[in-house]
């Protein structure tokens, strides 16, 4: 197999509103057990890619904390590994804080690694893929740059501001431009690129000559009309996590077994960090329906159509519906909750009711008492 380098690109990422004031989407908790970045890193890992890097834009602490050992994602802990690439000089300079500049700051990483092909992928678009057949085809047909695209049926509502891809009958990209939500049936770019390493160097040079503010996405957009860029069409589960309400909606949607089975599969080893929490405990008055419950939680109230994170305590008389509760939160005093995203370590002790909706969720900040 061709040796590939997997790069998780955290630049040009969407954000989940208030959840991302102190962390990026990549390290945000998902389904009470994972961080978003686990999905793409596991895709790399399960595709036999063992040289990986994370291009970090901001919120380095939460990324480092999640991947500190790095060994979880590679087969051999001495060969290969996970490297964090950070553009220190430009980090606080909004215009300059691009993936292109981050690469330029860290070219040693590309030079040092043996892989000839680079796979660049985002953390905020979640899907499952085996990159191996694509890389093989990409190399065999000498494509140099390939983009993964997908047809969707809800373009008015999803993948807003992501790129619409115009693909010709031979599978080559003809144009790439932002989705303004005008049509439902569109083909979108999954911001995932397979690029020959030498071509990537060329893109860096080209971008620099064009604008110091240019991102990889800008560069590929600009080149789409002039350069043969091949597309691979992905099918199956894909979601772009781009707002707090989509976070809540897409999380709860996975409680539907049919949707869950589109994403999860017994053959897919999805790696994540372990916290050594004991199994969840259900007490006398627990009434839990249609929910994910993470380990360490102690439940004595009603929970319906919700996702409960690690070490959450839900006391008797409490009712939680259509909500995502992050780890370490304590809910007591018979509070009724609907349509809430509650960040870590909150205490809901003085409220009788917190009512939002999936379209317009309520939010409680990390560590707050309400």
């Amino acid at each position, binding site marked *: 197999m061709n040796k590939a380098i997997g790069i998780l690109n955290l630049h040009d990422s969407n954000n989940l509103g208030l959840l991302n004031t102190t962390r990026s989407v990549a390290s945000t908790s998902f*389904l*009470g*057990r994972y961080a978003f970045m686990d999905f793409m890193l596991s895709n790399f890992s399960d595709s036999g890619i063992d040289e990986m890097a994370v291009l970090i834009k901001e919120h380095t602490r939460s990324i480092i904390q999640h991947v500190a050992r790095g060994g979880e994602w590679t087969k051999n802990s001495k060969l290969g590994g996970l490297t964090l690439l950070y553009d220190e000089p430009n980090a606080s300079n909004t215009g300059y804080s691009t993936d292109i500049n981050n690469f330029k700051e860290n070219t040693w990483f590309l030079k040092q690694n043996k892989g000839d092909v680079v796979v660049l992928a985002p953390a905020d678009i979640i899907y499952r893929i085996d990159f191996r057949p694509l890389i093989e085809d990409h190399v065999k047909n000498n494509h140099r740059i390939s983009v993964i695209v997908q047809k969707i049926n809800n373009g008015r509502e999803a993948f807003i501001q992501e790129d619409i891809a115009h693909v010709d009958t031979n599978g080559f990209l003809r144009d790439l431009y932002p989705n303004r939500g005008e049509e439902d049936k569109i083909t979108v770019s999954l911001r995932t690129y397979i690029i020959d390493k030498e071509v990537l160097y060329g893109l860096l040079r080209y971008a620099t000559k064009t604008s110091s503010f240019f991102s990889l996405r800008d560069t590929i957009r600009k080149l789409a009309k002039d350069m043969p860029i091949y597309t691979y069409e992905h099918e199956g589960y894909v979601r772009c996590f781009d707002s707090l309400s989509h976070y809540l909606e897409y999380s709860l949607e996975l*409680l539907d077994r049919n949707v*869950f089975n589109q994403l*999860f599969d017994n053959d897919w*080893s*999805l*790696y*994540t960090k*372990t916290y*050594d929490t*004991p*199994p*969840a*405990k*259900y*007490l*006398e*008055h*627990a*009434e*839990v*329906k*249609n*929910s*994910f*419950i*993470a*380990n*360490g939680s*102690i439940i004595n109230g009603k929970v319906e159509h919700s*996702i409960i994170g690690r*070490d959450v305590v839900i006391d008797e008389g409490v009712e939680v519906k259509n909500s995502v509760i992050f780890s370490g939160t304590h809910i007591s005093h018979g509070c009724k909750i609907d349509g809430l995203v509650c960040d870590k370590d909150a205490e809901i002790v003085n409220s009788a009711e917190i009512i939002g909706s999936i379209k317009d969720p309520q939010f409680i900040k990390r560590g707050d008492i309400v």
Partner: protein
Amino acid sequence: MANEKTVAMLLAGGKGTRLKSLTKKLAKPAVYFGGKYRIIDFPLSNCANSGIDTVGVLTQYESTALNTYISNGSNWGIDGNKSLTVCLAPKQTDEGASWYRGTADAIYQNLDFLDSQNPDYVVILSGDHIYKMDYSKMLDFHKANKADLTVACLNVSLEEAKRFGIMKADANFKIESFTEKPKHPESTLASMGIYIFSYKVLRSELIKDRANPESENDFGKNIIPTMLANKKRLFAYPFDGYWKDVGTVESLWSANMDLLDDKCPLNIYDSKMKIFSEDTRSTPQYIGPNACVKNSIINQGAFIEGNVTHSVIFNEVTIEEGAVVEDSVIMPHTVIKAGVHVKRAIIGTERVVEEDIISSQDEEIALVA
């Protein structure tokens, strides 16, 4: 003395015959417990939480599975630059090859390992018990008494006393007598099989014991009585927490049920003294729209659509809609089919249960494994 070195030696070679088919292919210390653990997670986590950085795990029966599970000790964090976990199965040496013949012989056969570590103290543990204990407190007690050997002990009933090593101690906890499994116990102070030796003493006692052809090479039967006879300083360290020997199907079941009792002193939810275990790559635990779960503990990866009451459910267990599970322990990767009723039972790993498994109050716990 600065930087005194303590090594733990964990006896994990036993089969655990009374656990019946649960140990057909698995050593007793590797048997599943408490929704996500194996029995040996408890002493190994105790070592981690007690600041012990070197652990030898003595394996013998079905050692491959246990050695694989222990691996380099990373599950318990005892795998860093300053710590070491190593499995010590019987080996061939210049003097020949033999199985571990008794608890003392198992340690004797690994004196080379202990010499290489050059410890001041050796903590000898068993891989068969469920309890949380800070061994560093016991070590402080051992040092304060300038003891040669300290034996952890707890009070049992007179009837239970017949199954244990029973000791008599004076007001200062100095042991006066020790009898292994006495027919007529003269005390109820029972040995928990947890020993702290000063290494020099341990080393010389093991060598003497080995030279005695009459000896069964057992700590309780030989080493302790001999040391007492030779006027060594032996102390009893009183322990009053939860401790359970899960040597039978019945006791394994009841120790699991203890976890569901809020009054039970064994608290696995205390984050200051976590029990560490292997991380299964499970999906989140799912409770379905028609499920009902009460008074139970359930691990990640479980998929519950039926009724679960007063039970312990492991990872990747499926309980289909309409199934009823009560007062039971369901081990990993097992499926309880729709409409099936399981009550007062232990169901082992990777089973598909298609018919009712029920034992009544006056019957033995049902076992499917």
